[in-house]
């Protein structure tokens, strides 16, 4: 039975994968991208090898997330798991920094520094060295199978896998001592988990940078979806100056704009789009089309910047100013003259700067006021109090003394609260005046049991505030912990 209700043939919602063959390009943006790539990859591979002396028995790796010992080392900073909020704060800082950079300069993160972009660039460079540039690769892929093609493909994938293993291996080095890890990997004595994670990150690097590439940005990454909220008319984005280029056409023909429709911008694009179609989700803002176009403009003796980092506000101003001009140098000059300077200071950027400054201040204050010695007093609840034979009342407390330094200090414990309470700590020494001395456990938590007794004649409330105070050798309070003394009211 024919279905008469269906429309003729709606366009498919499925987009088949079109392989992108980006052409190599040279120019200013490309040079900046190479420098950024070298710096970032250099940092990534070198940082785990930096050493930082922290004394005997402590990891000497400058940057190390020591999962098995639950410590995070960053040069002179050592964080405990309960201080993970510093990491949270750092991530918030990174996010706001990203928002601010995006509102100022567009998708600089995507185009220059995102690991997906950096590793894809590296993989493409390897690909070009082995299989040649765009035309050679397209021709070889379209042609019949050959020994040459097979060998080149094997070489390319082998090189990719070597890079992927190095990437995955270096990632693990941030979680284990790098020299030890390399020795273990080389001798095959690393743990199963280590091999698993090296294999995992090797596989993801190989797949994401070798195959998925622009699809990660277009389909997988959430960032392109919501970064539109950070961009406005004054953000720098990669744009084609339509007012100057159109109508596009052959160099020789009459009445054409500056775009000679050579397709260079399309051929170099790593995501395979045409920037002349306007702003697109797929555009990662890498600016390689700028280099490609400038090269062509130079050859045909026309000014640079037909494709450029430009704000949408300037683009609209230029378009309006050149509406009545015919293609030619006058139109180009009028359009460029209509532009205004980049507005770095706008409510949006000021807001991001303000939030950034606020978070930095909070983090800095939190870090500078961070306690390296903390005392926690937990009142025992079973029983809440013990009646002694003389009619006295005794409460017991678990004291936890956490020392984030490695000084192995000794501290005198005193009690602040209702007068007349007797303090005793089990299994510790006392000083000359009978006060308990608590030995701290370097880089650890020492646990003590304290007994506080109220004599039989002492008036009691059901609930009295107490404070355990820890004194250093000079008698300064270095840490204190609050608790309560419970008893029958009398």
């Amino acid at each position, binding site marked *: 039975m024919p279905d008469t209700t269906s429309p003729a043939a709606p366009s498919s919602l499925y987009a088949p994968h079109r392989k992108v063959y980006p052409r190599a390009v040279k120019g200013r943006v490309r040079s900046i991208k190479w420098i950024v790539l070298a710096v970032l990859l250099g940092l990534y591979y070198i940082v785990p090898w930096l050493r930082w002396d922290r004394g005997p028995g402590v990891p000497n790796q400058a940057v190390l997330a020591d999962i098995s010992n639950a410590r995070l080392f960053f040069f002179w900073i050592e964080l405990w798991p309960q201080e993970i909020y510093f990491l949270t704060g750092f991530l918030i800082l990174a996010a706001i920094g990203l928002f601010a950079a995006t509102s100022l300069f567009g998708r600089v993160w995507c185009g220059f520094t995102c690991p997906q972009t950096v590793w894809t660039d590296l993989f493409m460079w390897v690909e070009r060295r082995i299989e040649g540039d765009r035309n050679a690769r397209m021709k070889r892929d379209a042609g019949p199978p050959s020994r040459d093609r097979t060998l080149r493909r094997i070489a390319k994938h082998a090189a990719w896998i070597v890079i992927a293993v190095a990437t995955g291996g270096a990632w693990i080095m941030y979680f284990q001592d790098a020299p030890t890890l390399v020795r273990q990997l080389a001798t095959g004595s690393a743990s199963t988990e280590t091999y698993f994670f090296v294999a995992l990150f090797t596989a993801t690097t190989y797949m994401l940078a070798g195959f998925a590439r622009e699809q990660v940005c277009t389909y997988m990454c959430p960032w392109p979806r919501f970064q539109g909220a950070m961009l406005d008319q004054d953000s720098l984005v990669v744009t084609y100056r339509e007012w100057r280029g159109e109508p596009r056409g052959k160099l020789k023909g009459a009445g054409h704009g500056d775009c000679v429709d050579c397709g260079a911008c399309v051929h170099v694009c790593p995501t395979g789009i045409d920037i002349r179609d306007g702003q697109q989700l797929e555009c990662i803002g890498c600016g390689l089309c700028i280099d490609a176009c400038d090269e062509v403009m130079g050859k045909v003796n026309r000014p640079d910047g037909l494709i450029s980092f430009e704000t949408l506000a300037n683009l609209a101003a230029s378009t309006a100013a050149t509406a009545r001009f015919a293609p030619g140098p006058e139109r180009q000059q009028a359009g460029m003259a209509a532009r205004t300077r980049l507005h770095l200071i706008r409510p949006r950027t000021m807001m991001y700067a303000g939030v950034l400054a606020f978070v930095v201040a909070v983090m800095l204050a939190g870090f500078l006021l961070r306690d390296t010695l903390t005392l926690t007093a937990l009142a025992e*609840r*079973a029983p809440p109090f013990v*009646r002694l034979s003389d009619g006295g009342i005794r409460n017991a407390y678990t004291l936890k003394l956490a020392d984030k330094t490695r000084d192995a200090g000794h501290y005198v414990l005193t009690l602040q609260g209702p007068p007349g309470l007797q303090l005793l700590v089990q299994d510790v020494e006392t000083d000359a005046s009978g006060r308990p001395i608590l030995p701290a456990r370097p880089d650890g938590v020492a646990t003590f049991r304290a007994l506080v007794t109220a004599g039989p004649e002492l008036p009691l409330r059901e609930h009295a505030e107490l404070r355990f105070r820890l004194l250093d050798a000079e008698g300064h309070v270095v840490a204190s912990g609050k608790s309560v003394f419970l008893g029958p009211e009398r």
Partner: protein
Amino acid sequence: MADKRETDAISGVSTTGHEWDGIKELDNPMPSWWLYTFYACIAFAALWVVLYPSLPFVRGVLGYTTRNDFTGVMREQQARAEPMLARLRAATPAEIAADPELRGYALAGGRIAFATNCAGCHGSGGQGATGGFPSLADDDWLYGGTFDAIHTTISVGARNGENPEARGVQMPAFAAAGLSMAQVDDVAEYVLSLSGTGGDATAAARGAPLYVENCVACHGETGEGNRDLGAPRLNDRIWLYGGDKASVVRTIAYARAGVMPSWSSRLDAATINMLTVYVHALGGGER
């Protein structure tokens, strides 16, 4: 509904003939990888039924049981703990308490053993309960609070009829042993006056000679008690069965006695040592 299979114009695939509010379902075949995964699961299940216990009363070819697995793991754990347990067995509780390593282990192990075996009567923190379950956290002991005394009490128990060396002597019920209820009342007033909590001084004075006659042998002249017999101190503020007059009267008239099992036949020597150290550290330990 079942007979409306038709060919979809867009995909060229037949529909299933089902329609809900105009929505029709295409009758696409299952993806083959899915189908083969399904077949593989069936094959795996068949193999599993043969190898492992899956049906009632059928053990499976491998003879695997989770119970054996569990006992194996437990045996492994015990073997791992054995060197430390041997040291805890060989040392006395006092020696254990003096060695920081052994003490830490004994306090941790004693806490678990206490929660398992003792907390039912003595409370999770050793606080005891009125009605004859002594507090182990205070400074009053029926049989003594030294390491040795605690160790012995745990080992032999009290009035349990299973261990001939068990602690404790039975207190007589004085209502049946010749005292009138008025006399019991007077003795109770005297007993309360020993800890300074009595009210009626004349009644206490009448009770004094009765106390000397009937109670001093075990509880002592000033009510200091007798740890050899397990006779509680009467001149302090701690009462096993309640310190109000009615409770004391009842105790004198009808007698009371707590029972504690003998743990030497139930627990390993290392466990009893750990329990001793733990109870000693609850707050009342004597040197």
